[in-house]
């Protein structure tokens, strides 16, 4: 079994589920003939044909809206948005319709759709191609928001998302699409949604993050370890709902909480995590809750994006500040 990247793991999960569930249909802009601009859907058209793998006309509201009609009819639509920066015309359908169909029909109809989009910066992409606005969707009742951070989690979480009976926004951290390779058995085994993953156990400080920032966070933890700071790293993975049990247990153990995300800070998902810790875990805390995040600025064009993105150096220095609280 070969080692594969995150992008290949996404493709492997799509292949697996399309093979085992003929209700799965994949569509979006340039996902068929072209195999997706990041090659996540490569080979699907050849294997499953034009009935199940479709290039759509160029319209994002349409992509989301039709997915809802398909899902209510018992299909398992997997709709791709080419980049997260182009998902906004679909917000109405995701928020007002997909996330509410079950509730507003009291369970008569439902919307088991998956909305996929690559998100985040750091690949020197053009304007609007480096968005990280997961919080907008994490706020939406009835929706799930999932972000993998490794090939294995991409495979297992995407399978779980497709099988989930309710709508899921599945955001793919394109910066680490090809970062590491991992053995990912194509066994069709899904990972639990609604669970955090403890990537590294530690006793001094809890580093909470998701998506591509896992990279800098792991680097920072290595360096901090050298300095004798034992870091616990939590990959939140599912941003709606959030597995606060795991997070609070960790903070209770370490007494220090540092949240890292790429998105802008103001009302980012990090705020929800900090707020919940400040309500239920405040007496565990030895230090303030800190957030190392993207700034509340527009994501700069690529020449400056590295100054916007949280660096491992900044994670390290902030963790050190928190360590000063004994």
């Amino acid at each position, binding site marked *: 079994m070969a080692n594969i990247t995150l992008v290949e793991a996404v493709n492997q999960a799509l292949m697996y589920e399309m093979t085992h569930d003929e209700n799965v*249909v994949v569509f979006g802009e340039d996902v068929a003939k072209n195999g997706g601009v990041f090659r996540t859907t490569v080979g699907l058209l050849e294997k499953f044909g034009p*009935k199940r793998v479709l290039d*759509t*006309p160029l*319209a994002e*509201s*349409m992509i*989301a*809206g*039709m*997915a*809802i*009609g*398909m*899902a*209510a*009819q*018992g*299909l398992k*639509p997997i709709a791709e948005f080419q980049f997260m920066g182009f998902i906004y*015309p679909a917000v*109405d*359908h995701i928020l*007002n*319709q997909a996330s509410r169909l*079950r*509730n*507003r*029909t*009291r*369970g*008569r*109809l*439902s919307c088991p759709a998956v909305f996929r989009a690559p998100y985040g910066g750091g690949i020197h992409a053009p304007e609007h191609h480096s968005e990280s606005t997961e919080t907008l969707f994490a706020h939406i*009742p*009835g929706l799930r928001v999932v972000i993998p951070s490794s090939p294995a989690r991409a495979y297992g979480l995407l399978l779980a998302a497709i099988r989930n*009976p*309710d709508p899921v926004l599945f955001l793919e951290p394109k910066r680490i699409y090809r970062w590491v390779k991992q053995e990912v058995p194509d066994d069709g085994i899904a990972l639990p949604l*609604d669970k955090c993953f403890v990537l590294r156990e530690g006793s001094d400080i809890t580093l909470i993050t998701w998506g591509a920032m896992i990279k800098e966070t792991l680097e920072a933890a290595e360096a901090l370890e050298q300095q004798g700071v034992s870091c616990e790293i939590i990959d939140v993975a599912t941003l709606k*709902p*959030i*597995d*606060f*049990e795991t997070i609070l247990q960790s903070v209770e153990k370490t007494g220090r909480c540092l949240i890292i995300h790429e998105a802008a800070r103001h009302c980012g998902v990090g705020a929800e995590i900090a707020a919940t810790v400040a309500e239920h875990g405040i007496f565990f805390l030895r230090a303030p809750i800190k957030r190392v995040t993207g700034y509340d600025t527009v994501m700069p064009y690529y020449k400056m994006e590295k100054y916007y993105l949280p660096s491992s150096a900044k994670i390290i220095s902030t963790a050190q500040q928190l360590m000063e609280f004994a």
Partner: protein
Amino acid sequence: MTKPRLTTTAGFSIQHLQFLGPQGELTQALPETMNHETLIKLYEAMVLTRLFDTKAINLQRTGQLGTYPSCHGQEAIGAGVGLAMQATDVFFPYYRDHATFLLRGTPMSDILSYWGGDERGSANVENPASEDFPICVPIADQCLHATGAAFAFQYRNEKRAAVTTIGEGGTSQGDFYEAINLAGAWKLPVVFVVNNNQWAISTPISEQTACKTIAQKAIGAGIDSVQVDGNDVIAVHHAMQHALEKARSGKGPTLIEALTYRICDHTTADDARRYIPQDEYQAAFEFEPLKRLRVYLEKNNVWSDEKEKTMMAQHAKTLDEIVTKFLQRPKAEITDMFDYLYEKLPQQFQFQRNELVNEHG
């Protein structure tokens, strides 16, 4: 400046269909698919719809119902659509489809529940297998849901069609256009019915678009369309039947523009006198769909004051049952707001559910 030579590369035209004129006169022979028996059925449904709306408005005025949009004047469209559809077709309504609901067998007490602030109004507990979508308030969203369902029918090679309704104002929405364009590109089995009642709340169609017809919007999506007299239930029904057969047999989508007039306030929260010229408003009653059909039926001696009285008595009874059922519906569970949110409520929100129960449970 001399005009250059232009070569014509494409030509289009818009066709209009009518059978029954405003005076109840046939402007052409009845289609084979139509007969007096069916027309009586349609007439009865249209009258019941009119009475239902009137009743709902009263319920609102007396504080027993929330804001309500009646479909006064549009009954022929709803009835024609409802009768032409088969049980296996799926309906994606907007919010003035009471005649269609009636003929689709949607519990009318549910419609009252919906406008009465109760989600169970879209649950159709009497027929939970119904695949029809609930009333759609965000204008034009339903058009895309219909295309998605139509794709599913095509995908499974089912001989079914999706039908969606919208107002002429709603055709200014990008979603409407994206839906008809996709339906054309993928040749989907879907029928778009535009209720052109001339007004979008206070905005007349003349301010909504420079188009002379709504039917011509289909040209911009490369699909077929036809304009019908929306106050002529025969024309609406015929156009629908034709479009549905075409859709079910894989020949693609159709846009039907049904010309009518909103002879009521936009909703009970609206006062149309603020913006509709009274003369225009009054004139519209000359063309409304119920009167002309009754005149036609009477001229052909298949209807009478006698029959009218019997029907009215029956309708009154039916309405009472509907309203009683609505008013006597037991209160829903407070926790429903959590219990239908996801198939299985995630732990994080389980805590919130407990909060709710602790405060109000």
